């Protein structure tokens, strides 16, 4: 916060004039961008529908309450599928992501030029694409069903788990590594004895954390045909059976809360 000398008088200002000008320009740009964006959206909106929204909302709510309790019976199987998509998908991702993380970590990547870059590229691509998009792709390739869901979850999780795991490997203490190397151990044995024990808590924590996220994601994969409770959701929405929809919402909420609880318990236990 500068003090400006003008007419022999020290003047205190929060910023210099140049900074003030830049700040104003910045704000102007943001506001202009927002106005443009809003105009763009507004042009593509049918405002008649929007003015009708409160009535539509109230109507929707009245149809959703009470939930269709009897519908629960047909939901157990999709729920079981959802659980399997999340769990098997996470396991599959762990199998792929663990070696990948060792290739991507600076301190464990083998001295083969370009290998680390490839591993990082795989991690980045996997992370950038939402599991729902992976599911779209896989449903097209493999056909609708649970298998597409499992692989979609796995493809998205590989990048997530791989990134967190390789960061954990890079943060591991170098002293035991040096000590194990000094005994004449092979590079593979060094990783096994000096690195693996150090990253075990992180590994367990990351796995359960991702499993928890995957439960949430698995509930919606059905929207594009990749199995699980989302299939029922899409079917109910398509026939405007809002009582069923709210029932599915309740079940999803309960499942998500339960998996969050399990994940929090396990993570508290391993750290």
């Amino acid at each position: 916060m500068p003090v400006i000398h003008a007419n022999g008088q020290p003047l205190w200002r929060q910023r210099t004039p140049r900074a003030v000008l830049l700040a104003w320009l910045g704000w102007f740009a943001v506001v202009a961008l927002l106005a443009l964006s809003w105009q763009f959206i507004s042009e593509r909106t049918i405002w008649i529908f929007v003015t009708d929204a409160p009535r539509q909302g109230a109507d929707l709510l009245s149809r959703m309450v009470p939930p269709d309790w009897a519908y629960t019976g047909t939901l157990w199987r999709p729920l079981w599928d959802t659980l399997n998509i999340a769990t098997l998908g996470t396991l599959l991702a762990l199998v792929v992501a663990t070696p990948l993380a060792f290739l991507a970590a600076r301190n464990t990547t083998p001295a083969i030029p370009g290998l680390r870059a490839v591993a990082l590229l795989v991690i980045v691509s996997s992370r950038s694409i939402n599991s729902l998009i992976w599911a779209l792709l896989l449903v097209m390739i493999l056909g609708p069903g649970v298998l597409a869901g499992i692989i979609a979850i796995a493809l998205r999780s590989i990048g997530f788990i791989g990134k967190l795991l390789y960061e954990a490997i890079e943060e591991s203490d170098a002293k035991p590594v040096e000590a194990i190397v000094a005994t004449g151990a092979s590079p593979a044995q060094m990783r096994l004895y000096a690195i693996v024990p150090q990253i075990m808590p992180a590994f367990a924590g990351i796995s359960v954390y991702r499993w928890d996220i995957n439960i949430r994601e698995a509930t919606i994969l059905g929207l594009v045909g990749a199995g699980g409770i989302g299939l029922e959701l899409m079917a109910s929405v398509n026939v405007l059976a809002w009582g069923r929809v709210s029932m599915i919402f309740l079940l999803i909420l309960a499942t998500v809360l339960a998996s969050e609880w399990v994940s929090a318990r396990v993570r508290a236990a391993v750290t």
Partner: protein
Amino acid sequence: MSLGLLRIEGLSKRYGKDALALDDVSFSLDAGEVIALIGPSGAGKSTLIRCINRLVEPTAGRIWLGDTELTSLDRRSLRQARRRIGMIFQEFALVERLSVMENLLSGRLGYVGFWRAALRRFPQADIERAFDLLDQVELGAMVDRRADALSGGQRQRVGIARALMQTPDLLLVDEPTASLDPRTSRQIMRLITRLCGERGLPAIINIHDVPLARRYCQRVIGLRSGRIVYDGPATALDDAVLTEIYGAEDWDTGTAQAEASDDDVAVTEA
């Protein structure tokens, strides 16, 4: 010149474009000889020790262990040579989340395959040896205790036992007492020198505590700015030599007190 067990000739090390960390260092070590390597921080003590088992690659010079020229080995032969060189570290460098026994067995990794190591199926002889060594460092009751549950002195004794698990021909010891209190430091130094004496095992002990060096080692090498400035008996280590190594200082204070110590402190501790 006697052909010692370990011979170092013209060893130099330069990190990047910095000044030389080691500058034309030569000396040799006979069987059963335990020497102290002293010098101020940054004199190159750690670098020297790590050049011997090539945790740090030397820039120039040659090192022989017996008939093996360590400096010319390929990766595979280097691993085999490293099995013959035990190393003890300043901050113990144990694998904290493994048990005491697993830390000891890690000293045998150079002799077993990947899967045996992964499944912890070591040869019975290794297990026997580990139990014997645990008794010798008085940690017999701690077999399955995790390393991070031990005190500093106990951890360093695990570190010593791990190095001896290798049945080494040479022991490299890097500041074994720097992380320990004075009493434990003396116990550890006594233990190391005693175990070396029993085995006729030569050792280079890198240490900044001059009184300890003088007390437990017969021969001392003084290093300053990467050069050897003193190599001789510990008894000849007088104020003039210390000033040569460390620069001017009043060397009387503190040493007298340390000399007047009891040798009967038990190795065991709380």
